[in-house]
């Protein structure tokens, strides 16, 4: 393998970031755009080159794709524990390289059009590069701590990008929320790392993931509250992952994150960063699987399933298209988690794992596409809300078509990408757990429904009157759309199972016909309902919602999750603890200190009478003092 090429992949965006960041004022928009895109292009090419080399040239070694590690010590903790910085090359990291590069490149190109004329143009591109760099570092990480480091960095770049329109209160609030919620999740992650590090004495993925490795076999027994310490560690780490991947109940930041510029939503909050959680679980999959028969893994599965359902329901009711997409992202991530959760390890047992990665891959493509289309639409009508849209297919054909492709993909209609991956997932789930399968298939239907709801709402639906006629976006924006549309249509045919499986040996997955048929049928039903309700403007939708009544309102208000959080933070943490601490510090702690001082002064005022100024009192004190001393002597001190 050519490591310099691999190491260059993250370093180029870093360089771009530094250049654009430091000479923010000096560089004009045109240049910075070019620099950004150019850098990304190189990285992308390098990624593809790497992928080619790894899968084609190097290929399998003794029946499995090898794990290649190249790293250097960054900091030493103890004799055994240390932080390495390096690159780890294995199927999933390579796949992630492809995903990140492709999407990022597209978004870079897209942004040149979308952000045109924005005062912070250069800043925007530097932040994009920063994010890309961090994301690369994350996927290439060789050990828990490195992944944590870049984990934090993607977090902060997401913060910066969400709060990009920093004069908007809502944007600032959203950015803050996103950072703090994920930070809270990362707390779990960090403690998990500490736990695992303490017991296994290493952070390296290779050692940790080795099924026969001493770390797993030796420490699994050590238990705390009935569960193995390693299980605890894994659960805590999953909390971190859940935070980034917006799993219930840590999902609340994702919808608000849509305050950021749409390209950002596409790149970070749809395609790449949010899948970091999934990637993390996949990265530690052998651990999850082998420690205590994958107890932690079951948790992953159920959380995933629930989030998928939960989000899909909410997505049905939102009117802000970006929010719909956000919830759909959450729901799709739920799918991936679910798939991971039900996966096995050996050979074709690893279907779930494979399908999850597969879905991650395809989802990246079509969800990014969806967002970029939405961006293009918003760009045209200057609004996020369905009510301001309709009949746009007349004005912006390219956007319309690519959106349609993406919609079909996500709905899981063959031959589009989404179909293949989702089908594999359902198969995997079915093999494991029927109940979860039912959930999965139901969500599939909902997906089709909500996506086509907005599709019809945007491009068909009522005939809106626009004060200035919406037009198709410039080439810089449409080109990425087309590219991604093509990808969304085609990537499904990649024989994923050849390349990616838990044991890295690969296996051949086959389409399970009945499964496929049911899935497609359900999807079609969903689409059909959407067609009926939203194709033309008709009272049906509203009547239906009225019929559902409270159920609808609940879903519409996102089941009041935000309110719950608000209550906890505002009333309990802020008004309760923080205010309490502040008060106690001023009044009690500081009060005591002042009290000591004041009481001394006060006392000295009290005793001033002793110095009466009358010589005879002095004499009195003199004599009586002498006498008292004498008595003290004679009765106390003399033996």
């Amino acid at each position, binding site marked *: 393998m050519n490591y310099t090429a691999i190491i260059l992949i993250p370093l180029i965006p870093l360089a771009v970031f530094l250049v654009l960041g430091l000479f923010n004022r000096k560089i004009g928009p045109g240049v910075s755009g070019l620099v950004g895109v150019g850098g990304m292009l190189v990285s992308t090419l390098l990624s593809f080159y790497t992928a080619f080399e790894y899968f084609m040239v190097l290929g399998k070694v003794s029946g499995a794709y090898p794990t290649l590690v190249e790293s250097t010590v960054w900091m030493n903790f103890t004799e055994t524990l240390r932080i390495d910085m390096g690159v780890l090359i294995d199927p999933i990291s390579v796949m992630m390289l492809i995903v990140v590069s492709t999407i990022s490149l597209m978004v870079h190109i897209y942004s040149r059009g979308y952000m045109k004329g924005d005062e912070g143009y250069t800043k925007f591109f530097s932040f994009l590069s920063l994010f890309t760099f961090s994301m690369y570092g994350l996927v290439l990480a060789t050990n828990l701590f490195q992944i944590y480091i870049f984990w934090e960095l993607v977090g902060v770049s997401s913060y910066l990008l969400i709060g990009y329109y920093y004069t908007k209160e809502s944007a600032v609030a959203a950015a803050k929320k996103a950072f703090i919620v994920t930070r809270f999740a990362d707390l779990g992650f960090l403690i998990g790392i500490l736990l695992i590090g303490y017991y296994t004495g290493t952070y390296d993925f290779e050692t940790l993931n080795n099924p026969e490795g001493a770390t797993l076999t030796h420490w699994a027994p050590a238990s705390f509250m009935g569960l193995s310490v390693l299980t605890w560690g894994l659960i805590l780490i999953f909390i971190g992952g859940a935070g980034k991947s917006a799993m219930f109940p840590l999902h609340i930041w994702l919808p608000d994150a849509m305050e950021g510029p749409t390209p950002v939503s596409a790149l970070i909050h749809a395609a790449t960063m949010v899948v970091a959680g999934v990637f993390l679980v996949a990265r530690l999959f052998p651990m999850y699987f082998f420690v205590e028969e994958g107890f932690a893994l079951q948790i992953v599965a159920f959380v995933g399933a629930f989030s998928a359902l939960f989000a899909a329901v909410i997505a049905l009711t939102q009117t802000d298209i970006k929010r719909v997409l956000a919830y759909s992202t959450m729901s799709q991530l739920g799918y991936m988690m679910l798939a991971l959760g039900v996966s096995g390890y050996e050979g074709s047992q690893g279907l779930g794992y494979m399908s999850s990665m597969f879905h991650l891959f395809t989802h990246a493509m079509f969800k990014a596409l969806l967002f970029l289309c939405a961006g293009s639409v918003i760009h045209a009508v200057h609004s996020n809300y369905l009510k301001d849209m309709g009949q746009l297919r007349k004005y912006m054909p390219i956007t319309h078509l690519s959106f349609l492709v993406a919609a079909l993909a996500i709905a899981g209609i063959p031959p589009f990408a989404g179909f293949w991956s989702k089908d594999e997932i359902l198969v995997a789930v079915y093999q494991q757990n029927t109940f979860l399968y039912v959930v999965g298939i139901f969500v599939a239907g909902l997906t089709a429904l909500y996506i086509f709801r907005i599709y019809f709402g945007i491009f068909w639906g009522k005939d809106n009157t626009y004060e200035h006629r919406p037009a198709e976006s410039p080439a810089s924006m449409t080109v990425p759309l087309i590219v991604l549309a093509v990808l969304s249509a085609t990537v499904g045919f990649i024989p994923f199972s050849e390349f990616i499986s838990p044991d890295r040996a690969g296996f051949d997955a086959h389409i399970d016909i009945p499964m496929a048929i049911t899935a497609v049928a359900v999807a079609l039903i969903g689409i059909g309902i959407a067609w009926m309700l939203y194709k033309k403007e008709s009272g049906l939708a509203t009547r239906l919602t009225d019929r559902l009544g409270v159920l609808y309102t609940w879903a519409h208000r996102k089941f009041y999750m935000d309110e719950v959080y608000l209550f906890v933070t505002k009333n309990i943490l802020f008004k309760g603890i923080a205010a309490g601490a502040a008060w106690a510090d001023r009044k009690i702690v500081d009060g005591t200190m002042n009290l000591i001082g004041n009481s*001394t002064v006060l006392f000295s005022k009290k005793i001033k009478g002793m*110095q009466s100024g009358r010589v005879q009192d002095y*004499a009195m004190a*003199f004599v009586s003092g*002498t006498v008292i001393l004498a008595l003290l002597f004679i009765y106390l*001190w003399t*033996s």
Partner: protein
Amino acid sequence: MNMETVLLLRQEISILIIALLLLIFEIFAGDRQKEGVVSLTIILFALHTGIGFLDMKEGLLFGGMFRTNALIHLFKNILNIGVLIVLLQSAEWVKRELVPQHRGSEFFILLLSSLLGLQFLISSGDFLMFYLGLELSTLPLAALSAFEMYRRRSSEAGIKLILSSALASGITLFGISLMYASTGTIYFAEMGTLISENNLTVMALILFFAGLGFKISLVPFHFWTADVYEGAPIGVASYLSVISKGAAVFILMIFFFTVLKPLIHLWENLFYLLAVLTMFLGNLFALRQQNMKRFLAFSSIAQAGFILLGLITGTTLGVATVIYFVLIYIFSNLAAFGVVQAISTETGKENMRDYEGLYRTNPKLSLVMMLGLFSLAGIPPVAGFFGKFFLFTAAASKGYYFLVFLAVVNVTISLYYYLLVVRAMFLRKSDHPIPHFTNALYMRIGLVITVVGILALGLYSPIYDYIYALSNTLN
């Protein structure tokens, strides 16, 4: 009256001579030359101080009534330096206030005779000399306190001093008589061998100690201090606060460490108790004082409390640290008093409030004041810190950690009120601050000496080594 005698009495004799010369000058000088008395005194006394440093061999006189040795000689030199500074600092005041009334030489003569008394006091070998020294040092001071006849407060101070001192000496005498009763001698040397623990001795010890406690102004014998300092002329007040106090400390040390050494297990309790009382009371009273003289009076009471920390040990270490502390204390306190003196001579202002914004008009004076106060508070790198630290070390060497703890608590309290003055001088701005003025030459010399002392005594360790070396010769 052979040569040897003269040499042993050198210090006292030269002081006497100076006093006589002043008398003669007073008689023969015409009105115009009267002012010369100031310079004359200072020059003569400077000479005397210088000569003092010639070393002196030890010996007894008058059948043991008068004894001297290297250590006692050191004491006397220390006192001389102190008095010299006092003279320098009060020179300007004398010029302005007293000379016009033809009372300049009087002032100096009285001051010197009081010093003479102290010299006899610390080199006394028996109680008679002790008593005479005590009285000879106190009576002139009473006169001096009442020296500003036209100020009521001055007379009041005089009255208070003379009456309380009379009472004190009466009680002391009674104590001495009891001690005489129990041992049958008034000579220290013999007494040391005959002393024994019984109620009579204890009684005597207390009564005797009361007299010295009065001079050192320990609680509860301290009440006169503040009033007298406030009323008396500043020069006298500073003399009281450092010179007579220092001398009393020395003689106390000599007497307790030699004669009463066998009874240490008794009087260490006494010192412990009084140390605590004195420190706390002194500080607590000093907290609220507005009048600078009164303020310094209480601070000097507190300082006396610290001195007891060294005295409590009864060891050579204790002796050394106490002497060292007293030496430093003389310089620090005189620096503070000097500034007060200068300002009051110039403007007649003595209140802390008047000092506000002083730094902006008279930076040098305020710096001297700050140094003096920091030294009193015991803040490095000025000498006071070393003095206190070593005192505490001495106390700790006998395991009195708790006493040391109480002491450091008091250091913190004292720091507070010293900082109050610093605050007034540096932090505050005043609408009518004390206008800028330049000091007379003598005052400047006096202040410079104190500053040099404050800076050098601590950092320049040989001084302490010298004192420590001599301290062995006490017993």
